[in-house]
């Protein structure tokens, strides 16, 4: 079958249309399937603020005192305690390795975990008092 120029243009036009439609459907489908509930960040930060652990669980200190997780985060911002691994073990399965960014700051020190790009679909911050004094500022963003 021989096609003239018009036929070829119509064919290419149909292919371009089909490709654009497929891309649009894919983007729409991924947007619907992958989105997180807006309350996710808020609820998660509340849970972090209320969590209590033994100090020796997440630090190298030989002290079994019951402390708030946010206290350990404040300590971790000053010195490396292995807190990063704990946070990753919770957030990685939930949002994927690059699906979130969590920053906690105490005084002039801050630690960032996760994807450091600025793109977030939801972001929330909280300030918690630290039992030894001062406050820890936590920001969680989900991309």
């Amino acid at each position, binding site marked *: *079958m*021989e*096609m*003239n120029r018009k*036929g070829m243009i*119509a*064919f290419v036009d*149909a292919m371009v*249309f*089909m490709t654009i*439609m*497929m891309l649009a*459907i*894919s983007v729409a*489908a991924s947007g*619907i*399937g*992958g989105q997180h*509930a807006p309350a996710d960040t808020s*609820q*998660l930060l509340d*849970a*972090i603020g*209320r*969590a*209590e*652990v*033994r100090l020796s*669980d*997440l630090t190298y200190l030989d002290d079994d005192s*019951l402390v708030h*997780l946010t206290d350990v985060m404040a300590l971790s911002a000053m010195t490396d305690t292995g807190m990063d*691994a*704990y946070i990753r*073990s*919770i957030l990685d*399965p*939930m949002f994927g390795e690059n699906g979130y960014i969590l920053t906690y700051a105490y005084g002039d020190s801050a630690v960032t975990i996760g994807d450091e790009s600025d793109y977030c679909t939801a972001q929330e911050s909280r300030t918690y008092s630290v039992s030894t004094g001062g406050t820890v500022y936590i920001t969680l963003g989900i991309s």
Partner: protein
Amino acid sequence: MRFNRRAETGFMEAIISMMAVTMVLSMYLVFVAASATGTDGGTGIDIRMLDIDVRDGYSLSEDYIAEFMEVNELSGIQVHVVIPFYDDDGITFVAGIAEGLVETERAITLVDYQDGRRVLAIVEVSTWR
């Protein structure tokens, strides 16, 4: 299909192109819809109502699960609880039969743990209907 003197199909060619585009797009839509099934669509379950207790072994509210299954006409449900760092294997609770359309929901919740700890747990709920 009738060809003209130069073997051009004209109108038929346009119709065939349109049918091809429609069929391919329809198949693609079916594929996308099928792929979307089973992702985090939300099961509608209230994680807090599960009343997960891990202080002395694992337990959860089987009454709430039974009621949730009945109200939502589910054929099966699975609740998998993991406590990162403290118990990475976790425990899986299964009720009913895992057959049919599956929906999965994952959430982080706070649970009471041993020795006064209140720790973060990952709860994954899958439902079948």
